[in-house]
């Protein structure tokens, strides 16, 4: 399954033709720098998601509540999501036509959408203050969150190889 099944090729050609896609495509070092920033921010993002999800599963930072932890880390998490989307969109636009035919890219975006839905619904509700410890919904939310976010990272890496 790829995006080319739903969206006409002219859209992807347009992405590569406009700024910043065209600019990144023409200056190779801009792609390398943008990709390096994308990976640095990945570490910040995955670190914050991982620590909160582990806590919901009852491991890791057990001496703090999930809601305390989420409050500590969420500014970092949301800033990194925004930076990931900005750098990711820029990288995407520089090779939109190739990515339109890439199955890993399709699954990356699918996994990302699902990860964000989980984040803003059940993870958010499970990390509200006063939630009971070790609630089953929180554990399910944490498993889904880990599965989809690692899915994004796995599929993202696979884009370069498949």
């Amino acid at each position, binding site marked *: 399954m790829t995006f080319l099944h739903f969206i006409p090729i002219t859209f992807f050609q347009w992405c590569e033709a406009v700024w910043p896609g065209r600019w990144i495509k023409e200056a190779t070092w801009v792609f390398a720098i943008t990709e*390096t920033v994308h990976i640095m921010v990945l570490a910040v993002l995955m670190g*914050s998601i991982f620590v909160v999800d582990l806590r919901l599963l009852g491991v890791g930072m057990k001496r703090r509540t999930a809601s305390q932890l989420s409050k500590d880390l969420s500014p970092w998490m949301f800033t990194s999501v925004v930076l990931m989307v900005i750098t990711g969109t820029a990288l995407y636009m520089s090779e939109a036509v190739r990515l339109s035919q890439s199955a890993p890219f399709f699954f990356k975006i699918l996994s990302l959408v699902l990860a964000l839905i989980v984040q803003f619904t059940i993870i958010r509700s499970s990390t509200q203050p006063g939630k009971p410890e070790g609630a089953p919904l929180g554990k399910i939310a944490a498993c889904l969150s880990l599965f989809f976010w690692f899915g994004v990272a796995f599929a993202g890496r696979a884009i370069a190889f498949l």
Partner: protein
Amino acid sequence: MHYIQAFCQWLNETQWSTYIRESDYPFPIIETFHVIGLAVSVGVVMWLDLRFLNIVMRDEPIQSVVDQLEPWAMGGFVIMFVSGALLFLSEPMKCYNTLAFRLKVIMLILTGLNVMYFHAKLYARLPEFDKLPNPPWQLKMVGIVSFVFWFGIIIAGRWTAYF
């Protein structure tokens, strides 16, 4: 340098090195584990660094943060180190000749020394630091060095692949 080069040349010719280098799947699979181990390990280490700098979880004792997070950082590091060693095994000569990789190794060694310094000199004094309104400069230095070098290692690692 001569000995390192000879070692890399020898390694390059071994059966394992040739196997990973010449087959289709092992390299991408190992690299994927490397990047995911990195995200978890550096992402967790970062919370320790930010706690040392008094930026996050200020109401949680420093030692408590270290004790709870360090096992996960170590776990991520082991995945990263093993997968990294296998990636190096697959192309030792390329790594040897790449400036970015040499810088990466130097930064890794310095990061290791930084962790050893923390455990040898500062860890036992953490309860005492927790009574202070602000962590002492030595602890902040450990946090800054770790933060800067880890992100330096990511940059150098990414650039090793480009050259």
